[in-house]
């Protein structure tokens, strides 16, 4: 049983990088850098006779070897000129060029129909050992080579500062990507920052309170091309298969619907910031306000499936993020034997969808339910990303909701009580949802609504460092307030949708129709008595998972993320043992979390491939609590 499913991954990585600089003239240098990353990965997998994978291959074991290699090369060449004039003007100019290339390929060999009791190691070491029964076939080997993903960039940057009072940086960068048609391939990214250190001005000269003060303004554009390759061309892949004479032949299938117009997604960031430090840098305050706008977002957009494709990668829509970040550093106590430094930050962000192309809203599927799942997120213009879309839970059907026919032993729902038609004919103990449109029937088409929002109201962190004589202590806490988590585990593990599925512990208090003697109870009085203390519905088993509000929980938390206590030997002792430093310490990471969330970890996000379905907890790993003991020695 232990090795019923076996999976082992190997990786080999070689990363080389180097640079050379050459001073051509005084103030003028040339720098070239080159980097090569070569990553090879192999995953060996094995499924024994008892696994569902073996089920379709005559209950005989299956093994596969997947090999992947990726090579990334980048090279940049730049000229830098820097000069200081009259001891006041500081000028720095860079111009350069850069290339990037990523090439990857993979091969999969799968062998089915191994001898029934072969071990994983034996099978993987003898991939030729599988032999299909008459009429069955081995899997064909698969190899896939991805076209090179290339970038070509030109860049220039000018930095200037006057007397450390006025500072300005302006840069211009042009990136061209092979993922887009040549005409659409370039994106020009201007960016710049200006800063004014106003404490250097004459009128601030006599000020003792403010040590340093700086006002910053920034603007920048960044691009995103993280999509598949060559999506601007209509291409075939060899993914089709059809059996003639019961023997499967490979067939061509279009990979995706080409979109000739694909171009860079761009993200414009604007920010204004203020840095202040007081009383000889004892207190430092930074406040930043920002507005980031994403435009021409690269998204898989649902298109009419009558085209033959259900989605297409498009540049669609825009979003904005506005927020404020505040950071405070304080050297609160600076005594000979005792110091206390504190660092506190807090931030809030507001996300808004500002445009979705030709529509005002669309639904997305987080996908944890597999291919049969229905959309469970809503994206809507004017609203933030991360709206969870589902039914509103309304407990479960009670015996009183039905009239009982003693002749046929059947329960018929009383008029006026909404019928959960998604789960079939209601019976006592069945999960109940709110009938939002009031038509007496709960349907997936009409009774789902926005039930929650994955975005936090604010978040932050607080770090404190203390030292007392030779002891030092640091405590770091962080928190998030106001976000909701879609606890998909709760849905899966209470549903009984498929045989042999585990249940969460609280399901022991579920509604039941079977009494202690193992008999089915149909009498209304007895059934009501049997379930007088039932706390939750009975599993529904409809082989379809639906989001309903019961599965959404508040994800707010306060976590003691790190606690470190150290002791250093006194210096006179160190001199005797000829050490310059000796410190012993103990650290606990993830010491404690204060949260009402019932899953493993409130800092969870398991469906990250789609940025529009954040906040799902499905089979997320718990966060490890780690203890570290250590010694720092300096000779």
């Amino acid at each position: 049983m232990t090795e019923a499913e076996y999976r082992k991954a190997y990786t080999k990585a070689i990363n080389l990088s180097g640079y050379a600089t050459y001073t051509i003239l005084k103030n003028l240098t040339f720098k070239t850098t080159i980097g090569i990353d070569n990553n090879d990965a192999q995953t060996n997998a094995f499924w024994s006779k008892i696994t569902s994978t073996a089920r379709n291959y005559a209950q005989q074991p299956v093994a596969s070897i997947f090999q992947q290699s990726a090579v990334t090369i980048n090279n940049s060449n730049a000229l830098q000129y820097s000069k200081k004039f009259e001891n006041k003007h500081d000028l720095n100019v860079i111009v350069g060029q850069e290339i990037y290339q990523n090439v990857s390929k993979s091969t999969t060999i799968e062998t089915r129909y191994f001898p029934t009791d072969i071990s994983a190691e034996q099978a993987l070491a003898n991939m030729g050992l599988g032999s299909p029964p008459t009429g069955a076939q081995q899997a064909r080997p698969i190899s896939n080579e991805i076209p090179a993903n290339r970038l070509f960039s030109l860049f220039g940057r000018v930095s200037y500062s006057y007397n450390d009072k006025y500072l300005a940086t302006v840069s211009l960068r042009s990136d061209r990507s092979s993922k887009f048609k040549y005409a659409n391939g370039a994106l020009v990214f201007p960016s710049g920052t200006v800063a004014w250190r106003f404490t250097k001005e004459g009128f601030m000269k006599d000020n003792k309170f403010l040590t340093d003060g700086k006002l910053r303004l920034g603007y920048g554009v960044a691009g995103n091309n993280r999509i598949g390759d060559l999506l601007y061309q209509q291409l075939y892949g060899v993914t089709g298969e059809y059996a003639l004479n019961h023997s499967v032949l490979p067939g061509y299938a279009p990979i995706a619907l080409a979109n000739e117009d694909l171009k860079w997604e761009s993200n414009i960031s604007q920010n204004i910031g203020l840095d202040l430090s007081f009383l000889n840098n004892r207190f430092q305050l930074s406040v930043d306000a920002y507005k980031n706008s994403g435009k021409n977002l690269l998204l898989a957009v649902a298109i009419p499936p009558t085209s033959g494709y259900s989605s297409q990668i498009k540049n669609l829509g825009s979003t904005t993020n506005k927020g404020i970040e505040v950071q405070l550093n304080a050297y609160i106590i600076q005594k000979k034997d005792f110091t206390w430094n504190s660092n506190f930050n807090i931030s809030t962000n507001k996300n808004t969808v500002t445009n979705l192309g030709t529509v005002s809203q669309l639904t997305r599927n987080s996908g944890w339910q597999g291919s049969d799942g229905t959309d469970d997120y809503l994206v809507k213009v004017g609203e933030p990303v991360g709206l969870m879309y589902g039914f509103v839970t309304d407990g479960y059907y009670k015996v009183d909701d039905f009239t009982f026919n003693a002749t046929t032993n059947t329960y018929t729902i009383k008029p006026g009580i909404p019928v959960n038609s998604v789960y079939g004919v209601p019976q006592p103990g069945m999960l109940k949802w709110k009938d939002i449109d009031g038509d007496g029937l709960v349907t997936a088409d009409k009774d789902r609504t926005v039930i929650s929002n994955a975005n936090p109201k604010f978040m932050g962190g607080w770090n404190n460092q203390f030292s007392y004589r030779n002891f030092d202590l640091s405590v770091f806490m962080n928190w998030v307030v106001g976000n909701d988590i879609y606890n998909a585990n709760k849905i899966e593990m209470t549903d009984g949708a498929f045989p042999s599925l585990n249940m969460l512990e609280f399901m022991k208090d579920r509604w039941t129709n079977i009494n202690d003697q193992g008999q089915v109870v149909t009498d209304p009085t007895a059934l009501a008595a049997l379930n007088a203390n039932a706390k939750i519905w009975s599993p529904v088993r409809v082989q379809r998972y639906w989001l309903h509000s019961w599965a959404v929980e508040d994800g707010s938390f306060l976590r003691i993320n790190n606690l470190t206590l150290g002791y250093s030997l006194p210096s006179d002792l160190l001199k005797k043992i000829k050490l310059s430093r000796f410190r012993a310490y103990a650290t606990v990471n993830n010491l404690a979390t204060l949260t009402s969330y019932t899953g493993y970890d409130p800092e969870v996000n398991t469906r990250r491939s789609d940025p529009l379905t954040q906040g799902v907890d499905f089979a997320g790993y718990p966060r490890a609590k780690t203890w570290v003991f250590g010694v720092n020695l300096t000779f």
Partner: protein
Amino acid sequence: MKNIVKKITVLAIPFCITMLMVSGCKEYLDVQPKSQISISDAFANVASATNAIIGVYDELMGDNGYGIRINMYYPYDSDEMIVSGNIDNGRRGIGRYQLLLTNTEIRNPFLQLYRGIEKANLCIEQIPLMAIYTSGTDAEKKELRRLYGEVLTLRAQFLFELLRNWGDVPAPLTPAYKQTDLFIPQSDRDQTYTKLIEDLKTATDLVPWRTEAGVRNERITKGAVKALRAKLAMFRGGYSLRSSGKMERNADYQTYIKIARDECADLMAKRGEHTLNPSFEDIWRKLTSFTYDPAGEIIFEVGAGGSNSNSDSRMGNYNGPSVNASSRYGTGGGGLLVLPNYFYAFDSTDTRRDVTTTLYAVAATNVKSPRRLGEITDGKFRKDWRNPLLPGTALNPGYNWPMIRFADVLLMFAEAENELNGAPTAAAITAFEEVRKRAYKGNESKIGKTPTDKAGFFDAIVNERYLEFGSEGIRKFDLIRWNLLAEKIAETRQKIQDMRDAKGAYATIPQYIFWKNNGEEIQWQNSFYKPNTVTTAPTGWTRLDWRQHLTTNLIDGVQLHAGIARFFVTGKSELFPYDQATVDAYQGKLKQNPGY
């Protein structure tokens, strides 16, 4: 000075590289596909174009094609069979006609059929553009024409399936990358049918007959094109649910009935290509043992294989008698239930009864146990007939799906002749009786007198197609094209109640049946057709609820007669709705079918 020159030289090297890069930038960024295949490479030669066509065939089979969903979920509930189990938002929602827009069993096949159309459209666009299509060798030109004819036929099949289930569907005839607007509007179904019937005429002249096509396999041959053309013409000339919510047929229907008649007549003149297998059982024995029928009765079949959800089928695993996974036959069956009135529609001497219906389940010990009257299963694709045996829990027995049989051609011919002539012609009666005599093999004298008036012959055709094609995914759609679905459902409900109450034609059905095992087989003590007043089992026999079962058997908490097609509403349920995601993707530009 020398130093500066040296420095400039050193600088010049990377600078030159950079300049080369800049000038070569366009070439550097011009990336070619590696594993993928460009359209021009895909249609460079016959072998590659064949791979593209295999890709089109691909969309016929699999769980979302004629592997289970289209052929085993969509045709029920009907007056012959129903889906087993209590209602859900999947296949039972389809069977009970409670179709929610989020039913994924509706969406996935819809997507697959349109993928098929898109793949076909790419081939239909490209094949005639291939240089060797006009200037290749004769062999190349012939083969490419065959491919072109096949792909026209495949597109017609995909669209036909969409038309009969969804009505006025969008019918894209050019590949999506050439469409200026992906919001392809809905087309009038009669126009689409007419276009497809023209396409099939073109295809008829391009593909070879079965015996001229070389190695026998599941590729489309001339017989398949002609039979499909006849079938489409019958549907074009039949009733369907219009967007008005009314069941109507176009006034020009006789034109199409004529096309169907002529195609059938052509096929019937080519008995060397396709004719009836002399034994009804042998059709299914051959299909379940992966043997081609020399008579070629199955004119068009969808190939299955590969033991996966994409290229293989689930018949026998999903439907047929319930077979225990630990038995020597391996798991199977139970997904479809034969209605009691269907079992009793067969004459006891009709060989089709015991092929089409099964009264047993197989236990882990291989021993058969009987099924009660309300839980009879179908039998054409039974798992225990598979040769070689496939023990264990495999999902894919690998049976092909028969799309059109020669019996269908004979009965379409008879139906069309009757319709066109106002009464059955001698040829129509011969064709009808040919099917019937094969069914009554050994008892041919019992086929009864064939009606000679139009209405009587039509009713006989309706009944004969009922008996001939059970579980072949034909009945529901036949009833719709005759505008008889609502009537037959109502009739079935009444028949099952009569049966429960031993009334009318069903007065003789026994309340209980007594049985025992004889080896692994079942031995029945009393007849299914004679009343039996004994209620206790004689020694050595076991009592089985027969008629009695209809009083206790419940689906969704109601009796069988009320539970079948429970939410069927005429003027709505004859078509499926477009699913929610399709409606959403169309952004308001798609007209939902009536009633949804």
